[in-house]
Structure formats: structure tokens, C-alpha cells
């Protein structure tokens, strides 16, 4: 399946297994950059690692400093390969711009749940395209 008409936020391409959540992520308090894992027991991705995944999530919340978390993940080698947002926020956009992580927004008419947990996904940000292999 190909989802086209995505909005490019940060250019580039990346692929990996989809790590999908409907819950926003506060990167300053919920992510351990050294391991790349979500550390908040209340989050549905608790203990899951972002490393090498295509992270599919609504948007980031919380502190303005969360932007640095993407750069930290990149430095520790634990960053996602690409990020797909419902509506990209300023922290995700600016952090990924510096960490060279491709980011796209899903088009408004994209079906929630179009990308299944664990499916193999390739993000082509410059072409505004997400390719989902079943």
C-alpha cells in the first residue's frame, strides 16, 4: 500500500518496522536516549525501543527541550529511521532537522490505522510518500 500526498517536514528517506501509537510522546521525560526506549509505564509503547523503527505517532508534547532528544537519539545510535506524524509539532520538526531524521505528516484523509504495528514501512519524505509492505 502506498500513502501519497504526505507533507514533507524534513527531507530524506528511511525504512524499518512501524512502531505505532495513538498517544503523543513527551520526549524530555518519556524517552531514554541511551537505550532508545520509552520509559513511561503509563505510555502504550512502554519499554519499546525506537531504534531503527519508523515511528508513527500523533505529535510530541511537553518541554521545548524535547527537540534535543532527537539529536541525542541520533548520537547514541538509537534514533528511529524515519518519523510519521499525524500533525508534526515544532519540537519534532526542529529536532529531526538537526538529527537528519526524515519526517512526514500523514494527509488529512489518511485512515487512522492505515499503518499496522510491526509492518515494514519505507518513508520517502521528498516524494511525500509512505510505502507500507504487508
Amino acid at each position, binding site marked *: 500500500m502506498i500513502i501519497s500526498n504526505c507533507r514533507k517536514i524534513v527531507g530524506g528517506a528511511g525504512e524499518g518496522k512501524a512502531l505505532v501509537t495513538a498517544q503523543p510522546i513527551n520526549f524530555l521525560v518519556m524517552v531514554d536516549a541511551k537505550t532508545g526506549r520509552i520509559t513511561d509505564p503509563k505510555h502504550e509503547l512502554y519499554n519499546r525501543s525506537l531504534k531503527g523503527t519508523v515511528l508513527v505517532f500523533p505529535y510530541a508534547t511537553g*518541554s*521545548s527541550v524535547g527537540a534535543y532528544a532527537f539529536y541525542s537519539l541520533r548520537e547514541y545510535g538509537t534514533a528511529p529511521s524515519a518519523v510519521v506524524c499525524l500533525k508534526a509539532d*515544532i519540537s519534532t520538526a526542529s529536532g529531526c532537522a538537526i538529527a537528519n531524521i526524515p519526517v512526514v505528516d500523514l494527509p488529512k484523509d489518511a485512515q487512522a490505522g492505515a499503518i499496522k504495528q510491526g509492518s515494514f514501512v519505507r518513508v520517502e519524505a521528498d516524494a511525500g510518500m509512505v510505502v507500507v509492505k504487508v
Partner: protein
Amino acid sequence: MELSRDEEEALAGRHGEAMASAYRILVAIGEATGAKKLIPIKWAHVSGVNYNTIGDAGVQFLDKFSSTAKVSVRTTINPMGYDKSRPGNIIEHFQKKQASIVRSYERIGVTPSFTCTPYEVFDDIPQKGTAVSFAESNAAVFSNSVLGLMTNKESALSALASSVTGKATLSDLRLEEARDPKVAIEADFKFGSELDYGLMGYFAGRVVKNRSCVALDGIEKPSTMQAKALSAAIGTSGSCGMFTLGGRAKKKISFGKKEAQVVIDELGTAEHGDMITLGSPQLGMNELELLAKMTEGKKFTKRCMIFCSRAIHNQATKIGLAGKIERSGAEFMCDSCMCLTPYVTRDEYDAVITNSVKGAYYMNNSNKVKVALKDIKTIAKEYTE
């Protein structure tokens, strides 16, 4: 987003690596927020100063960035991790890393304000309608809502990009139409203290999903202390970046005792604490005056840390106010703030007492220390004799 020829060239690296990175950031957030162009700003306020918030990767990034970056507009910066004149329990490793961060920012040419309340520290606030770029969320919300400045809730990196380029995206709350509230939160009980404003703010930030403005109804015009508590709490829980008092919002949501209790249940995780921490946002002169009055002739029965900017502490020292407060046993921690402070660790403290909803959020979630949430009058009454 359209760029001018100069901006295109800077993005391509013609004015050095730092400038190119800064434009890469602005282009990304321009795309994310649907901006059509960049506009000049008068003031940038940058977060990401405390070593506990940006870590080793942040230290390295700033070291490299600062070798070619220079501010092009007035730039103030957030608190760092600790007060250099009170190193207390702060380990040498932390001090070294913190010093490196401060050196990097100084090299870029910022004003070393170390404050999260730049709106209280500087007298020359730009006139209403001026575009600025503030990362610290309480400062962004306060400036939009109380001072009439125009900023989005920037990230640490986007405000830094604005600082070196002198520009920001023309989007969201820098557009008049976005400053018209679509949702109103209506309080259905009478507020007793700054804590009620904080609880309402945290609730409002949760329910307003967009980077927009929220109308607040059924409350009296907040004092400066109450507006700070409100702004900080709105900024903590979501992406909403501004409030108005009243307004013609179509959608109305009630904020009653039940809704307030949900926030207390989440963040008020203890009945009492081992220490009092005040100052998220950092305390200003009128809060210090209030505290001095309430504690006159009394002593705190618990250790009490007051976080404030060096500038406010200097003012308070000059008129004898700082001394009055210190006679009650409270300690001033300048240049720092209670959020992610290395002064409060779980090894030493089980729980702290504070009136700050924002502070409570970070104590619970980052410092992993429990919190007794009480308003400042109750704290001054219960914990002094």
C-alpha cells in the same frame, strides 16, 4: 514556505554551517506549521541550558554550533542547572558539563540571564504586536497572553535558530486569526489561590489540542503570580500557547472541582514533603514581598529552596527583602529553577512541597520525587513557626 534569495543562500551554506543549520530548522518548522514565509523578530529566548535537560549530546551540539554561530537579535537564556555560589550536593561532573554549556552560549553572544521569566527581568518589553521567538513555554504563554507579544511555543532549537537568523515562521500564534480562541474553559467554582489557576491551566493544556489560543471564563483577572502559575501549567500539559480572559469561543468546556481533583490526583502524589521548593516559574519581586510578609518573625520548619533569577535576587538584596526572607531560613538558588534541578534527587528526598503545578509535573516525572501540592499561603502557614 517561500524563502528570499538571501535565505536560500544561507540555507545552502553560504554564511557558514551554523547559519545553514538554523535555516534548516526554520524550514522544517515552517513546513510543520504551514508558514508561507519568515518574518523578522525582536527577541529570542532560548531553552536547553540545564545539563539535566540536554545531556551530553546537547553539550556536544552547542560546542560545535557555537564555533560558527552568533546572535543577531537580543537573546536571553533559560536557567542552568544550579547556582554556582551554592554548589551544595552538585557533583563535579555536572559542574563541568554545565560550564561547557554556559561557555557555548556565551560564545554565541547571548545575555546570560539564566531566567525562565525574561518578561519580569527586563524593563524594556517590546510593544504589543511585536514578533518574538520564545522557547520556554511559560514565557511564551505569558508573553502572548499578558504582554500581547506574538510568539509560538518554540522549541529549544527553533528559538536558537531564530536567535542567529533574527527570523521566525509567520504561522500559528503569529497570525491574528489564530489568536482568536475556538474553545472556552469555564470555571464553575470560585478560585482561592494561584494553585487553582495552575490546575485550570494544566486542564486547559490537556483539552485544547491545537497550537492555539484558549478562552478562560468564570475567573477573576489573575494577578501576576496567578498569571505565571496559569501560563506555566498551560505550557506544561499540551501545545496550546495562549489564553484570553473571556472571548467568543463556540465550544465551551466546564472546569469544576471534579476536573481540578483529577489534576491533583495525578500530580499531588504526597500529603507532606521533606523540603519546600518554590519558583517554577522563578519568583519575582511581588512574590518575594508576599513571602516576606507571610514569614515575618517566623522560621521554616522544613528546608525551603527559592529559585529566582540573579537579577531579581540583586533587586531584592538592595532593598533588604532577600535578607528578610533568609532570616526565615529559606535559601536562594539563583540562575536555576526547580524543573529537572539536580538539587533534588530521590536519594535524598522522598517528596517535596510546592505550589507549582509545572514544578510538580517535572518533580514526579523527571526527578521521580513525590509532590505535596499546596498554595503559597498554606505552605507559609503550615511549615513555619
